[in-house]
């Protein structure tokens, strides 16, 4: 009974946290874009425009859910849910500090990746069921992109698993928690001794950008040629869920980068240990992602696939082998 209550509470908090992040990252993105583009951004509703996300939510929920003619109604309705739910589920295993974690799962890493792959299915369903040529093309792009980028991402994660010797996310962080130089991104101290770990970090970061359909890899919603991409036929909260799912996925991607390479909740020099170190690192990465989006133009589909198959996959494989060898030697 107590355990059930604990799990329910944890899940509710995880959902609330995911939804809060998703909603306010939209605000942060628009404000960030405003700063970069020398304009105010949303600043009317509430102080600093902070009431914008709930009002947007109310507006979207007040809209009629509309099924265009000829759509596959089941898949069309299921797709937004399939994007949002796995993203929320992944939040359950993220360790925010050594004690703050909704549910510690020994195969946490596997679970996060399993749910991350499910999100692509939602995008594909959306594109397929909409009966729109633009959204179909966007869905095809998204799938080929997700397949291409999951491989180097998994290989890099495997490198981390080799170093840490566990798939438990909390353990992976605990291994790096001694100090700043034990983080996985730094090659000299810590477990790995692998000088190429910064490149590994870069590969993982690029892959997480591509996995979450973020600029410069946002080919699934390339508005220049595909109008709005896979969610072209969606309105109301269906569209809202796609939007929130995208931002929830960004939080997951940034969290994983933090956990794998930047020492998660570990404090750099033994000052004020606590959950805020995780949050600082997480939002620093998210700010970088926002910054990249408003600076770079979009890549092409072949440029994107070439990058993955010709550069990232060989590089990450090489890094995996090197790490394995070095672990054997030292």
């Amino acid at each position, binding site marked *: 009974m107590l355990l059930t209550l604990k799990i329910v509470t944890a899940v509710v908090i995880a959902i609330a946290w995911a939804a809060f992040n998703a909603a306010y990252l939209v605000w942060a993105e628009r404000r960030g*874009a405003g700063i*970069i*583009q*020398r*304009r105010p951004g949303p600043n009317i509703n509430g102080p600093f425009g902070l009431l914008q996300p709930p009002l947007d939510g109310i507006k979207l929920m007040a809209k009629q859910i509309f099924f265009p003619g000829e759509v596959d109604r089941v898949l069309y309705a299921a797709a937004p849910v399939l994007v949002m739910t796995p993203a929320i589920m992944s939040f359950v295993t993220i360790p925010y500090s050594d004690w703050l974690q909704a549910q510690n799962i020994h195969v946490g890493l596997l679970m996060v990746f399993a749910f991350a792959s499910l999100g692509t299915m939602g995008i594909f369903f959306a594109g397929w069921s909409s009966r729109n*040529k*633009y959204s179909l*093309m966007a869905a*095809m*792009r998204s799938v080929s992109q997700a397949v291409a980028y999951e491989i180097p991402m998994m290989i890099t994660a495997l490198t981390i698993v080799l170093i840490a010797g566990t798939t438990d996310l909390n353990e992976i962080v605990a291994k790096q928690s001694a100090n700043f130089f034990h983080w996985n991104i730094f090659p000299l101290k810590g477990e790995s001794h692998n000088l190429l770990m910064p490149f590994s970090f870069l590969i993982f970061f690029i892959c997480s950008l591509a996995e979450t359909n973020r*600029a*410069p890899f*946002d080919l699934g919603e*390339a*508005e*220049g*040629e595909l*109008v709005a991409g896979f969610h072209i036929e969606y309105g109301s909260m269906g569209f809202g869920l796609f939007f929130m799912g995208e931002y929830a996925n960004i939080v997951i991607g940034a969290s994983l980068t933090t956990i794998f390479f930047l020492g998660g909740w570990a404090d750099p020099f033994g000052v004020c240990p606590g959950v805020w170190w995780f949050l600082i690192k997480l939002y620093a990465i998210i700010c970088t992602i926002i910054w990249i989006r*408003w*600076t*770079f*133009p*979009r*890549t*092409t*589909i*072949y*440029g994107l696939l070439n990058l993955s198959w010709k550069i990232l996959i060989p590089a990450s494989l090489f890094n995996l082998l090197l790490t394995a060898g070095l672990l054997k030697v030292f």
Partner: protein
Amino acid sequence: MNLPIQLQPDETFILNVGPQHPATHGVLRVKMEMNGEYIVNAETVIGYIHRMHEKMGEVKPYSQFLMNLSRMDYLGAMGYSHGHALCVEKAAGIEVPERAEYIRVLMVELNRIASHLVWLGAFVMDLGGFTPLLYCFQDREYILDMMERITGARLTYCYIRFGGVCRDVDDQFIDSARNFIPYMRKQLAKYHKLVTGNIIFKKRMNGIGRISAEMCRRYGASSAVARGAGINFDVRRNEPYSVYPQLDFDIPVYDGCDNMARYMVRMDEIEQSLRIVEQIIARLPDGEVMPRKVPKIIKLPKGDCYQAVETARGSFGVRIVSTGDKIPYRLKLRSPTYSNMHLFDEACRGMLLMDAMAMLGTLDLVIPEIDR
């Protein structure tokens, strides 16, 4: 990167791009026959914003038609009224004071910079980069504010009249134009850093969207499309008009035939326009801006008159056939983007949709100007 692929005609589908589509910048419709993401065939469909400007010119006196010209191309409007005014003046034999002619060229060149800035922003937005658009619009705002003070309009000017310009420029305008030149040079360097040097941008530009010189000649393309294909043709230089022969400027020509060449031509043209503005400010002669005697109702002598000018979008021509009446018998407007756009049908065959859209962006289309 457009590798030749085996096209299977039975596996194609029709993609209807437009008339409302973010990449077409207006109401252009492109019917594309697609094989996956590859374009097998494309057909541009125009006419959605046809307003019968030519016919309007044939039922109105010349001076009443003057404001129609700036409605053709809302981004580089000044060049179009310049062309029409020059044509009518040539036929009617109206002398234009030197100061007026210099002011006209000054305004046309400032307008050209404004137009190229909008193109730059919108083009990079086609490629998925949002930020340059807002930077460009801020710079353009500078020009528009300056021109608004003198001409009274921000987009659709009726500033150039037969015989001169309707209002003289003042010291404040000259000062702000003088301040604008170093500011714009600094901004231009910034754009080169932000956009031209970007690796993703380079990958999408170099070697993509090939339009050869032979093709440009066949379709009658002009502006950066032709000059990006190595054709050294600019009406300002080859068929000199107005005071351009007295000004020192270069015609940027690149022979890459690709997106990058067209992009670089336009970026360099901004710099050349700045040079022209600089020279005019330095040597603006004193005097009247309208001649004393311009007839209220202009009647052109019987005959045929043609005048071409280089607008921001290419060589624009006005042909007036007069029977000696106060309205022309026939008025033909040669729109530069009309020719530039029809290249697209042929050039985009076998390309990926994304690359084709990038190429469409480099053509710098203004749809109301095509449809007239």
